C-alpha cells in the first residue's frame, strides 16, 4: 500500500467515525484520568448503554490537560460538537445517558465545554475557557482528540505528512528547516536543535544513533508522560525525521519504567508503524532504514543526562563522563549519537507538517514556538498546558491556573525542578523564555511548574530539592557528592532551628564551588533552588536562624500545636485520633496536648470539627494553657 492509500483509508475511517449515526463517548484514560476512576466509568458506561439498549462507540483518548477536572467524559452526537463533562461520577454517567442520549438534554449544568465545530447553548467552547484561551497547542496538538492506540487517527489528522515532506528533501534541507524554525531543546538546556543535528550529521561514521529522552526525572512534572500516553505517533514521526536528517539507522527510546501505560502505548504504536512500512528496512519504499527500540530506565535521575543515559543503555552504571567527546561525535558504542527530548520530537513533526516559518511565528526573538508545562501545586486549575514562549508567569498562574486555592496569597512559582529556582511575586510579569528565566536565577527546564502559597516554607523547599539531588548524585565527582551533602546538612540544621548566622554565607560559597566544579549539570544546577530562595526570600532564612521561627509554619521542629482552652468543647475527637496519645482530656473537659509527646503530625488540627476550630498551629510562640484538666467553660472564669 502506498502512503496515499493508507492516508485515504485513514481519513475514511476517521470520517466514518465522526459521521456515524451512533453517538460517540470519549473517556480520558491517561494516568491522571485512570487515577481518578476513569476505568470504572468505562464499565459503568457499558452497563448503562446495555441496560438502556443504546448503541454507542466508546473510545479511550489521552489527556486534554484539565487534570483538576478529571475524570472527564465527552459525549458527541452526530453533527454536533463533543460536550466535555468534568468530575464525572457513576451517578453522573447514568444521568447523562438518560438525559442527553435518550432525552436530548445536554445538561449544561454538568458540562465544562464543547470541543469541535458547532455550538450548544449554555456551554462555552473550549477555546473560550480561561484555562485554554491563552494556550497554543503544537506539541500536544492531538492529545485528547485521537485514540492513541489507533495510528489511523493520527494519520487522518495529517500525521506522517511531515515525514513524507522530509523524505522528499535532502538531509541538509531538513536540518536547515529545523534551524530556521528556531526550535530549542525542550529537555531543559534549550540548545538549538538544528545545530545539534548538524554536529551529528557532520560527524564521520557510517553508523549513527538517535535517542529519545523520555526519562522525565523532574519529580513534579508529567508533560512527556502525558504526551506519550496521548499521542505517541507525534513523537515517533519526529524521530523518523531526525533519523533521516542525520543518517541514523537505529533509535532508542529511554523511558522511565514508572510509566507502564506510556510504554504500552509506544509498543502498540511501533507495531502499527511496522505494518504500514513506516519502520524497519526500506521505509515507504524510499531506501531509508530505521528501527526503534524501547529501553526502560531503572530509577536513576542522573540517567536523564546524556552521557549517563548512554552508559545506562550500554548496560552499565549510569554515571556521566566528561565531554568532549560530545555524544554527537562519540556517543552510544562510541558512535555519533543525537539525543532529544520527547517534546522536542513532537515539535519536529509539527514543523515538518506545517513549516519553519509557521512555527517561528510563535514565541519571542530568542525562544521560538511553544512550551508545555505541568502546572501543579496550590493553583485552582492544575493540569498540563502548552503556551507560546513569551507569555507572562502571571498569565499562567492567574488566567490559566485560576489563581491560588482558598484565596490564599501567592508566594512563588518553582520552575525547572531540582535544577531550577523559585520565582517570587516581583517576577510575575516576566515573559517566560530561556533568557528571562535564566536572568531571574531559574530555568525554563523541562516544564515542571509548581505554584506555592503562604503555607510553603521556602527554606524547606530548598532543603527538599537538595535532599533530592543529594540522593540522586551518582557519586562520581567530589563537588556534587560531598557538596550537596554539606548543603543539605546546613539546610536541615536551619529548618530544625539549629541554624547559625554564618550559614547563609557558607551556603553561597558552597553553591559557587559546586556550580563551577561539578562534572555534569546535575551538580552544576543543584544549588539553584538554594540560590534563588536566598536571593528572594532571605527574610525567611533569617527568621529560622535568628528567631527560630518558620513563617509558613511548615518546619516540624519549629512549630507547636495547641488546643485553645476558650474554644475546646471537650468532644474527645482529637484525643481519639492522636496517634501517640499525647492528648489528655475527658468528656466536657478542656483537652491538653503534652508538648513533649507531640510528634506534630497535625491530625488533631485536621479532625477538630470546624464549628469548634479549637486547634491552632504556631511557630516561635508559646501559648498559655491550663495546667490540668478543667471543665469546658471554666477557662474564661479563671
Amino acid at each position, binding site marked *: 500500500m502506498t502512503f496515499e492509500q493508507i492516508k485515504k483509508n485513514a481519513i475514511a475511517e476517521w470520517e466514518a467515525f465522526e459521521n456515524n449515526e451512533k453517538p460517540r463517548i470519549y473517556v480520558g484514560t491517561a494516568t491522571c484520568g485512570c487515577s481518578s476512576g476513569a476505568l470504572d466509568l468505562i464499565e459503568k458506561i457499558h452497563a448503562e448503554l446495555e441496560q438502556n439498549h443504546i448503541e454507542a462507540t466508546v473510545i479511550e483518548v489521552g489527556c486534554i490537560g484539565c487534570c*483538576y477536572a478529571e475524570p472527564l467524559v465527552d459525549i458527541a452526537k452526530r453533527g454536533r460538537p463533543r460536550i466535555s463533562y468534568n468530575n464525572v461520577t457513576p451517578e453522573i454517567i447514568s444521568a447523562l445517558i438518560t438525559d442527553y442520549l435518550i432525552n436530548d438534554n445536554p445538561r449544561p449544568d454538568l458540562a465544562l465545554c464543547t470541543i469541535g465545530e458547532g455550538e450548544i447553548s449554555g456551554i462555552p467552547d473550549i477555546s473560550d475557557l480561561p484555562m485554554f484561551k491563552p494556550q497554543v497547542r503544537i506539541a500536544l496538538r492531538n492529545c485528547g482528540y485521537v485514540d492513541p492506540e489507533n495510528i489511523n487517527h493520527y494519520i487522518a489528522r495529517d500525521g506522517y505528512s511531515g515525514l513524507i515532506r522530509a523524505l522528499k528533501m535532502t538531509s541538509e534541507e531538513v536540518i536547515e528547516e529545523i534551524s530556521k524554525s528556531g526550535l530549542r531543546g525542550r529537555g531543559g538546556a534549550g540548545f538549538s536543535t538544528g545545530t545539534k543535528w548538524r554536529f551529528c550529521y557532520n560527524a564521520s561514521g557510517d553508523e549513527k544513533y538517535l535517542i529519545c529522552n523520555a526519562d522525565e526525572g*523532574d519529580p*513534579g512534572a508529567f508533560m512527556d508522560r502525558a504526551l506519550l500516553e496521548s499521542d505517541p505517533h507525534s513523537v515517533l514521526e519526529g524521530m523518523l525525521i531526525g533519523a533521516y536528517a542525520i543518517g541514523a539507522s537505529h533509535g532508542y527510546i529511554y523511558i522511565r519504567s514508572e510509566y507502564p501505560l506510556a510504554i504500552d502505548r509506544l509498543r502498540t504504536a511501533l507495531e502499527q508503524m511496522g505494518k504500514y512500512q513506516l519502520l524497519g528496512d526500506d521505509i515507504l519504499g524510499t531506501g531509508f532504514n530505521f528501527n526503534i527500540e524501547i529501553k*526502560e530506565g531503572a530509577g536513576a535521575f542522573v540517567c536523564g543526562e546524556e552521557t549517563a543515559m548512554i552508559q545506562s543503555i550500554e548496560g552499565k552504571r549510569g554515571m556521566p563522563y566528561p565531554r568532549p567527546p560530545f555524544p554527537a561525535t562519540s556517543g552510544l558504542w562510541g558512535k555519533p549519537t543525537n539525543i532529544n527530548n520527547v517534546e522536542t520530537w513532537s515539535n519536529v513533526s509539527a514543523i515538518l507538517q506545517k513549516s519553519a516559518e509557521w512555527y517561528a511565528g510563535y514565541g519571542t526573538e530568542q525562544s521560538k514556538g511553544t512550551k508545555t508545562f505541568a502546572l501543579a501545586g496550590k493553583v485552582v486549575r492544575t493540569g498540563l498546558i502548552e503556551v507560546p514562549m513569551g507569555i507572562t508567569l502571571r498569565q499562567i498562574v492567574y488566567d490559566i491556573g485560576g489563581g491560588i486555592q482558598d484565596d490564599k496569597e501567592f508566594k512563588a512559582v518553582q520552575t525547572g525542578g531540582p535544577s531550577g529556582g523559585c520565582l517570587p511575586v516581583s517576577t510575575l510579569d516576566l515573559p517566560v523564555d530561556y533568557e528571562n528565566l535564566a536572568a531571574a536565577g531559574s530555568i525554563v527546564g523541562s516544564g515542571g511548574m509548581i505554584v506555592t502559597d503562604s503555607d510553603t516554607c521556602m527554606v524547606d523547599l530548598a532543603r527538599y530539592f537538595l535532599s*533530592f539531588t543529594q540522593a540522586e548524585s551518582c557519586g562520581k565527582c567530589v563537588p556534587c557528592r560531598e557538596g550537596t551533602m554539606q548543603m543539605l546538612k546546613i539546610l536541615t540544621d536551619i529548618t530544625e532551628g539549629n541554624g547559625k548566622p554564618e550559614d547563609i554565607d557558607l551556603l553561597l560559597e558552597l553553591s559557587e564551588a559546586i556550580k563551577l566544579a561539578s562534572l555534569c549539570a546535575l551538580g552544576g544546577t543543584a544549588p539553584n533552588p538554594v540560590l534563588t530562595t536566598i536571593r528572594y526570600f532571605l527574610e525567611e532564612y533569617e527568621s529560622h536562624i535568628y528567631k527560630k521561627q518558620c513563617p509558613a509554619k511548615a518546619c516540624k521542629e519549629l512549630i507547636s500545636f495547641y488546643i485553645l482552652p476558650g474554644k475546646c468543647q471537650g468532644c474527645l475527637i482529637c484525643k481519639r*485520633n492522636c*496517634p501517640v496519645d499525647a492528648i489528655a482530656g475527658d468528656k466536657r473537659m478542656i483537652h491538653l496536648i503534652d508538648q513533649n509527646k507531640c*510528634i506534630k503530625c497535625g*491530625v488533631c488540627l*485536621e479532625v477538630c470539627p470546624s464549628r469548634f476550630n479549637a486547634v491552632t498551629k504556631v511557630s516561635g510562640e508559646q501559648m498559655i494553657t491550663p495546667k490540668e484538666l478543667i471543665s469546658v467553660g471554666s477557662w474564661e472564669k479563671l
Partner: protein
Amino acid sequence: MKAFREYFKNNRFNITCGEAKEIVDTKIIGVLVQFTRDRRNLIPVLQKVQEAEGYLSAESITEISHFLDVSENDVYSVASFYAQFRFTRPGDHIIKVCLGTACHVRGGERILDNVERELDIQPGQTTSDYKFGLERVACFGCCALAPVMVVDQNVYSRVTPAKTKKILELYK
C-alpha cells in the same frame, strides 16, 4: 547445575524451558531464555528477573552472572546503582508514598511519617511478617490530586494523615 552451566555457555541459547526445568529454578531460566548472552542486556535481564521473582536473590544474581559472563561483582555494582532493584523479599502489599514536588508542598512528608509510624518501618523496608513494604517515589503524575499514596495498584489521592490509617486498615 554445573553441567547445565557448561551447556549454557557452549550453546548459544537453544535450550527449551522443558529441559531447563529439572536443573534450575524455572522462573529465572524462563526469563533468561528471552535474551541473548550479551552484556548490554544486563539491565533488562535484571528487570525481568525482578518482575518474575519480586526481588533479586543472591541465587539469581549468580545465575545472571554466569549467563552473561559478567562477574557477580559487576552485576551487583550495576544493580545497586539503580533505585528500582531490591535485594530482599518485598512485602505482600507495596505502599508507595509520593514525595514529588507537588506532593511535598501539599504535605507528602507528613503522610510518609504517618505510614512509617503505623507500620514501624522506614522506606525500603518490609514489615517482619512480610505483609507490607514501604517505598518513597517521586511523582506519579497525579500532581493535581496531591498528596498521593499508592497501595499495590490502587491510587489514593488527596490523602491526609488521618486518612492514611484508614487506608492501611483496608489491607491489614
